[in-house]
């Protein structure tokens, strides 16, 4: 018997945004405060899992038409790309660089290539978590 999940669905639709915003906050906080790509990615996939619990796999897959396996590849590419990019400047592999920039809106901001590496971690964590959960969920 299928019960009416309308309350769960509505609430999780709203709570999704709060979790996602918090995960983005954690992702960007990573350099100076607790947080980073790993916890950010886990929290993002946690938000998607909440939607999976409220809806079903098909609805969520239609809502986010993302191939999570490709996402792992893109994330790894980010990590390898930023690491290998150091070689172009005649410094060892994985050397990162940063500088201060004046951005519109944000003011004086330090842009660090480690953020790109972290983005890779973020994407891989989302990809792996979602792949695991979806694969288990789909098998009968």
């Amino acid at each position, binding site marked *: 018997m299928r019960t009416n999940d309308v309350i769960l669905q509505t609430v999780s*639709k*709203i709570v*999704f*945004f*709060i979790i996602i*915003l*918090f995960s983005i*906050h954690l992702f960007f906080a990573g350099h100076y405060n607790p947080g980073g790509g790993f916890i950010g990615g886990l929290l993002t996939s946690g938000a998607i899992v909440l939607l999976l619990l409220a809806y079903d796999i098909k609805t969520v897959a239609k809502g*986010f038409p993302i191939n999570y396996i490709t996402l792992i590849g893109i994330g790894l590419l980010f990590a390898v790309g930023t690491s290998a990019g150091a070689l172009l400047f005649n410094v060892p592999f994985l050397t990162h660089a940063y500088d201060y920039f004046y951005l519109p*809106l944000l003011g004086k901001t330090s842009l660090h290539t480690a953020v790109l590496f972290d983005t890779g971690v973020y994407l891989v964590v989302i990809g792996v978590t979602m792949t695991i959960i979806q694969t288990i969920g789909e098998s009968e």
Partner: protein
Amino acid sequence: MAFQILLNFFLAFLWMFLQVSFTSTTFFVGYLIGLIVIYGMRRFFSTRFYMHRVYAVIYLTMLFFKELIMANIDVLKVVLQPKLAIKPGIFALETELESDWEITLLANLITLTPGTLVVDVSDDNKTLYIHAIDIADVQDSIESIKNTFEKAIMEVSR
């Protein structure tokens, strides 16, 4: 639509609280991040992503200014003609728009543009009676109104 804007505001405030920074810049950054997240979630809402509608409003405004300039040039041409070669008349325009404000907007836009003037609206809000400076090509003017204004208004309100 209003719900999505409200949610976007709420997310911007949430971002301000998360950052512990209560400046307009943080609000704007939070608003942008919220916008991106809502865009990602757009398939879960019953209505369209509200930026489509914002874009449609901007498009309608630009269309209005363009038509306004064209209209005044057209009237200028008519006025400056040595011989009065115009044939005024009134024609009916069946409209698909339904709500009051849509019809009002369409009527005002028609009045302000190329040589046409809304004279009356039928009681059932289905037909607009339009006075045209030059009736020679009624079908053309109906088509052009339908294709530009009515479509743009429907894009906004749909």
